[in-house]
């Protein structure tokens, strides 16, 4: 059951849950898009941690490879997110997401 892991799997899952919760909380509560992007990265990392932990547990490298893919997507997403933040700042002179409501129906 334990495989090549140096600690029990429950620890990894608990750490991943905490990281994900921190990320969700950051996205929901912070109004600065930069912090929100960082929180999203936190949620990505929680998922990546689970991927590599279970890959190690079941000695299947697919999980390792998938973590790399996920990191790549996260990097692309961060780039687009930061570009949006820059554009918003140029037009609105601020980056508060609560004040940015041009899409309001």
């Amino acid at each position, binding site marked *: 059951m334990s495989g090549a892991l140096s600690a029990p799997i429950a620890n990894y899952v608990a750490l991943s849950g905490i990281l994900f919760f921190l990320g*969700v909380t950051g*996205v*929901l*509560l912070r*109004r600065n*898009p930069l912090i*929100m992007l960082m929180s999203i990265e936190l949620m990505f990392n929680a998922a990546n941690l689970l991927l590599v932990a279970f890959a190690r547990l079941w000695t299947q490298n697919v999980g390792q490879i998938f973590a790399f893919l996920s990191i790549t997507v996260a990097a692309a997403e961060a780039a687009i997110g930061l570009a949006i933040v820059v554009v918003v700042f140029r037009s609105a002179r601020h980056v508060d*997401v*609560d004040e*940015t*409501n*041009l*899409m*309001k*129906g």
Partner: protein
Amino acid sequence: MVHHVMGVPGFYPWLLALWLLPLLGAIVCFAFGPQLRRVAGAFASAIVGASFLFAVICWGVGTQTVGGALGAHQVLFSWLPGFDFGLLLDPLSLVWALVITGVGCLIHIYSIGYLEGDRAFARFFAYMNFFIFAMLTLVLSDNFVGLLVGWALVGLASYFLIGYWFDRPSAVAAARKAFVINVVGDVGIMFAIILIYSRIGSLSFGDVFANVDKLGTATLLAVLVCLFLGAAAKSAQVPLHTWLPDAMEGPTPVSALIHAATMVTAGVYLIARCAPLWSASKDAQLLVGTIGGLTALLGAVLGMVQWDIKRILAYSTMSQIGYMIMGVGIGAYEGGVAHFLTQAFFKAQLFLGAGLIIHALSNEQDVRRMGGLAKKMPFAFWAMLTAVLAISGIPGFSGFFSKDLIIYGTLANGHPWLYAVGILTAGITAYYMFRLFFITFFGTYRGDVDPSSLGIRHPELAGVASAHADAEHLHMSGWVMNVPVAILMVPTVFSGWLLFGGTHSPWARFFVSQFAQIRLPAAPISEGLTSVLTFVLVLAGITVAYLRYATPSAQRNAVERLRRETVGMPPVLSNAFYFDAALDALFVRTSQWLGYLAARYVDPLVIDGGVREVVISTQWLGALARAFQSGLVRAYAVLLVAGAACFIAYYALAGGAR
């Protein structure tokens, strides 16, 4: 279904020409009215005259019998299965065609003089020719739909001509009233047509009459009641008669042609045409006979109390058509049709004679303001006298023969009450016709008398003498008006002799193949005795009229006597038994009330409300959807997280259950 063709099929160019010529005349008069000017009258008269000539030429084919088929049948085109449109000329439609074109031609000629100087001269003749065409369509059609088309077209022509002087509000109102009441009848016929087609699958007269037994007693009665609704509306039968007296707003020749001689007898034609249907239902016969008798009596009673010369004649028309409807209704078809023929002559003559007087007195129509015209207008005097004798049923004149045929027919068909009504009405008829005659022609001229001393209470007439206070300068009519009246005098006096000789008379032999199945049984009172009884009542009527209006003392005190009669008139009579008020309360008010309800509630709440409800619900849905589109990134994030949480919770729970 048994197919049955009435008439010998073939190609009959004269029949087509007789039918279509008046339509051509109407189109030409309408299109080239300004160019034709005065010629329009002569042109239109010539068209109808030619039509009459063609009708005479068609006499031979109209009365031919080849292998059980009677008359001429011209197929025009086929529309639906079981429904070919065509023309049928048999003795019945031949009589009508001859009267429509013959009397029509004379009245056209008369109109040239009567409407001289009218500004829309050509339009009048366009309408008149159009009417002739419509009426010929009605009587020549070989099926119910063609009949209904003609039926509606004559109603339209009647509307045009009653409202011919459209600058008079009363004429416009009368035209509208006539049209609306006639449409009630049209709808009745339409229902009958639907019933017939649904049961028999054909609408040609031949097929329908050959398959009467497929209708069943109840359906047959329904069909006949619907048909009679149409006949009653067109022929001014109680209680749909109220339009006819008002229709007198039209020019007098129109009253003579349409509202006396031809159109109003369309109901008689319809019943006579559908004789095989009517003979199959005793209930329908009783209904129609009763309504006819009631109309005859009511018209005569109301005719006694009118002062307008044309309204007297209108009620008399209603009464005479009541006779005809009673005749054809109870199965005395030959009698009813005969009375149509003689009435067409003497009633046209009465109207044209009245027109001579009205023309001479510059549109004065109140008989109280006439009087003493015998010496001033000898021609009108003789014309009216012959017609009055004919309508009263003096032996030897036309009305005597036809009226007695109907009265005797009622008894022979077992309707003693209608027999009594017929004889009584004959007496009243003699009274009111001679009343008109004596007031108009006897005594001294009253046009120069103050209207209030005659009891006339028109505010605009107070203290005003008639336009022709000077009776020496009447507007006498020329030959163009006198000649048609003189020609009409011949059949007015003599046409009844066609009926002389019982079953061997020319009339009976003419119709022997048409109404062969109907032979009158013997009646308890002989035909001769019936004539004597009727004649006694007619004499009594004339005597009363003489005593009231024509004795030397009555002539001397005419002004005072007329005033007393006017003032003492019971309101129930001067309001014509309140038929107008009753119809108004029952139908006009109800319709207005329904219209008010629709305008007040149905339209704003149901129609507009429905549309508004769609708008409101769309708005509501939009508001609901918009609530999610807050534009707040964090609100979207909450939704995302909540959605993800639901997703996870579902699989966690479902996974647990599995």
